[in-house]
């Protein structure tokens, strides 16, 4: 059993999804899906602890040895991400039953859970696999499931948003496939470790350069790097709130993970940063993304859309961390991936609570809402402070390491840019706080009650995680430090 853990955590949700069809009642489906997700979560926690104790785990699918068969490889880089994906999914599912009551027609609830499980299986698969083509397969599984989830949104524009994402996502996936195909042509292998060994022999060919370019651009599309982010705000704004919670906290992180894996492990540091002007490109786009998206966020009335733009900005930070091309930089990116998952999870879940009561998440209808929904808005406040990077929250830890990495490279202006980016997030978060707390309740404020406990409890679990991992950083920092050291240890 223990040896099959690496594959189990993908298999469980993948098998649970069709099984949902057999259960008719939606409460049963929900309970089953949640149970499966918690099982997956438990498996990924076990995996992480195993990796921390005894190093990377390699699993051969069907007993076929690595270069020929499909290899699943769990190491310090992807194990924490597996925990994040399954953890956020489990917590979000706790709230999902209540949250979708008002947002998804009742006859589609079963489909919702099925798509959710498939999406999660896809994300976990991308993360766990050690096979380049397998990445593409799982990418398609998760993407198709995501299009479905977004299209379930009540607003008719959800269909359009889903279609927009479908077009962008398909272009991205095609680019990725072209990249993988070209790599296969040149090396005759699809196993990542094997690719890493064989690529250096042919690295000075135009084909490999083209493969790299296609692959990176394709991934950037999926991770919504500015200016390829146009699909994201609509998708996040019109999807059912609980879906947004899950996607914002995990989906883009997985794409960033793929990028890191290929840049550092498959193509190698040498190739990516010396043969390719990757550093300049990523740094420019990262900083541009931080500023443009944050400024756009300031002008949004729909808070889900505002947080979506904030996500684009946060992706800028992640990419900036990669562009430092240093151990601290990668560590900061990995840390921020986990931390941002926690903060965006909390923020979007608080919006799910608002949407549950108000039907919308428009700031213009939230005057004095904090007096009606104190716990929800307190959660938003703490999540917002974490996003800004106030000490004692996870956001501060991320910012600290990001700025340290910038200073280590001697890039003082970049360090200043990171802090200025924080200032912009102060503006768009405080706008909400001012309206929710300091505007008096008017007639346009709907007469609502506090959100139900089925949403509040998962919400506060995430909020407390934001605080806990902001104070006790020993786990997150040591894990990401080891992962970053592994990535660089392979080279030096």
């Amino acid at each position: 059993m223990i040896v099959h853990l690496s594959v189990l955590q993908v298999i469980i949700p993948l098998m649970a999804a069709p099984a949902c069809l057999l259960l008719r009642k939606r409460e049963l489906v929900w309970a089953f899906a949640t149970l499966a997700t918690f099982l997956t979560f438990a498996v990924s926690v076990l995996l992480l602890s195993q990796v921390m104790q005894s190093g990377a785990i390699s699993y051969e699918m069907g007993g076929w040895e690595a270069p020929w068969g499909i290899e699943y490889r769990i190491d310090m880089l992807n194990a924490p991400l597996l925990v994040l994906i399954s953890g956020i999914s489990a917590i979000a599912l706790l709230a999902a039953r209540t949250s979708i009551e008002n947002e998804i027609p009742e006859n589609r609830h079963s489909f919702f859970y099925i798509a959710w499980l498939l999406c999660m299986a896809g994300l976990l698969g991308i993360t766990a696999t050690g096979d380049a083509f397998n990445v593409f397969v799982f990418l398609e599984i998760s993407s198709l499931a995501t299009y479905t989830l977004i299209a379930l949104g009540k607003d008719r524009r959800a269909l359009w948003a889903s279609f927009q994402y479908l077009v962008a996502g398909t272009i991205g996936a095609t680019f990725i496939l072209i990249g993988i195909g070209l790599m296969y042509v040149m090396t005759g292998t699809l196993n990542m470790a094997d690719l890493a060994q064989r690529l250096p022999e042919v690295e000075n060919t135009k084909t490999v350069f083209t493969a790299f370019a296609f692959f990176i651009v394709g991934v950037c599309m999926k991770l919504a790097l500015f200016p390829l982010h146009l699909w994201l705000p609509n998708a996040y704004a019109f999807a059912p709130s609980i879906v947004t919670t899950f996607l914002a906290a995990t989906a883009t992180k997985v794409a960033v993970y793929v990028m890191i894996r290929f840049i550092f492990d498959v193509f190698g540091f040498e190739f990516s940063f010396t043969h390719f002007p990757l550093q300049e490109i990523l740094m420019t786009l990262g900083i541009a993304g931080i500023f443009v998206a944050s400024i756009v966020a300031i002008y949004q009335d729909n808070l889900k859309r505002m947080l979506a733009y904030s996500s684009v900005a946060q992706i800028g930070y992640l990419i900036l961390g990669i562009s430092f091309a240093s151990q601290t930089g990668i560590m900061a990116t990995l840390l921020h991936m986990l931390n941002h998952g926690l903060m965006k999870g909390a923020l979007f879940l608080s919006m799910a609570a608002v949407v549950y009561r108000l039907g919308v998440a428009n700031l213009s209808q939230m005057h004095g809402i904090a007096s009606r929904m104190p716990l929800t808005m307190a959660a938003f406040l703490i999540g917002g402070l974490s996003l800004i990077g106030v000490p004692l929250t996870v956001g501060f830890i991320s910012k600290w390491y990001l700025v340290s990495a910038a200073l280590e490279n001697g890039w003082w202006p970049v360090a200043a840019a990171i802090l200025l980016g924080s200032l912009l997030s102060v503006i768009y978060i405080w706008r909400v706080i001012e309206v929710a707390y300091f505007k008096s309740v008017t007639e346009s404020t709907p007469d609502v009650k506090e959100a139900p406990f089925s949403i509040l409890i998962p919400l506060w679990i995430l909020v407390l995680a934001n605080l806990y991992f902001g104070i006790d950083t020993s786990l997150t920092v040591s894990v990401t430090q080891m992962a970053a050291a592994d990535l660089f240890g392979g080279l030096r």
Partner: protein
Amino acid sequence: MNFLAPELMLQLTMLVPVLAIAGILLTGRSENVREAVSIIASLIVLALVIGLYQNFTAGVPVAVSWFEIMPGLSLSFRLEAMGMIFALVAGVLWLVTIFYAIGYMRSHHEQNQTRFYACFALAIGSVFGVAFASNLFTLFIFYEVLTLSTYPLVTHAGTPEAKKGGRTYLGILLGTSIAFFLFAILGTYFVAGTLEFTEGGVFPAGTSTAIGGALLVLFVFGVGKAAIMPFHRWLPAAMVAPTPVSALLHAVAVVKAGVFTLLKVGTFIFGLDFLNTLPTTDALLYLAGASVVIASLIAMRQDNLKKRLAYSTVSQLSYITAGMLLATEAGITGGAMHIAMHAFGKITLFFCAGAILVTLHKTNVSQLRGVGWQMPFTMIAFLIGTLSIIGLPPTGGAWSKWFLLSGALEADQVVIMGVLMLSSLLNIAYLLPIPVLAFFPPADGAARPAIKEAPLPSLLALSFTALMCLVLFVFPQPLYELAASITN
């Protein structure tokens, strides 16, 4: 309180105000109980601070560490002389202000008083955090809590004007702290490898003076609470707050947290020797000097009494900033003493301004002719406060100004000496006429109105602080000893 371990006392000083918040929120329905909670909490805190002071003078070292967030970054506290001064000032004045506030808030029929007292307690708790912090990181956290917890107090009135003021307040304080202060902290950590307040500074020998100079600029502008120009605008904007807030927070706690931070950074992060070698020290010193004079000139043109006092505070804060930038022992001593002296003087003036507002509903200087006959105690207290701000005997302000002057002399900064002298003259010009005119006969020869003094709790409070200004002139010894021991 000496039966408690000093470490416990130190932590309780910060925790009691936080606990008081719970009490205040729970008893919010009954005004008297709620105020009793505030008073009891502030009495306990005062007793704790005095207990700490006794321990401190006995030479007992007190240090507490809560937890380490990252290697080298911990939330920890240590008692030293400068923090002791700040804590004593805040401890004494909190109690006094609570009394004052009770009189003021009730006779002014303010709304949301529960929120007011709760935020007030949180602000004071974080002031003690700033005072006791043993490293820059801890100090930064409490500095930010102080900003956030005072925002609801500034916007207390809820009017559009209050909100606008609140936005300026938060924008400048939070903006400078993230863009400059945090940047400076990160830079310091990167260069020196530690943020611990250390005697003689943390920068290793041979640190580039260019980097040091740049960091100093970031610190001086980043600590927006010290209100050096051009980042002073939040302070006049904050005057939309109720008077007790302006009095304790914007004359004492918040602004003093700013200059206190600067003194700490100058003494224990840079160290006076390193500070002396930096290329930017002199430029910043002249900027502080310019702030002193320009703020005084602006103060002259303010007719609104609270605004005039606010600009006077901007000017006085730059005295302390300048004291740090002089980088001499007398400068630091003078700066630290001025924290206390200015606190008692300025809080008296604000108390008086608030008393005039609630009893006579007058806010402008031009309306104050003859009010001395109606409110004689208040205006005499105002006179004493004025003398202390100017720095004239027999008030405490004379001493701190003396040390600042001798610090300037030691550093051969004739310009700064001139600035300090000029500023005293300007102070006389814009403050002294107020109490003097108040005792002129009312205009147009009307009959003297009957005595109508401020509410009794408020009157007691402002008499006490005025008295303290005089006491500090006669017995400055304990304060001087504390301040002088900072650099030894």
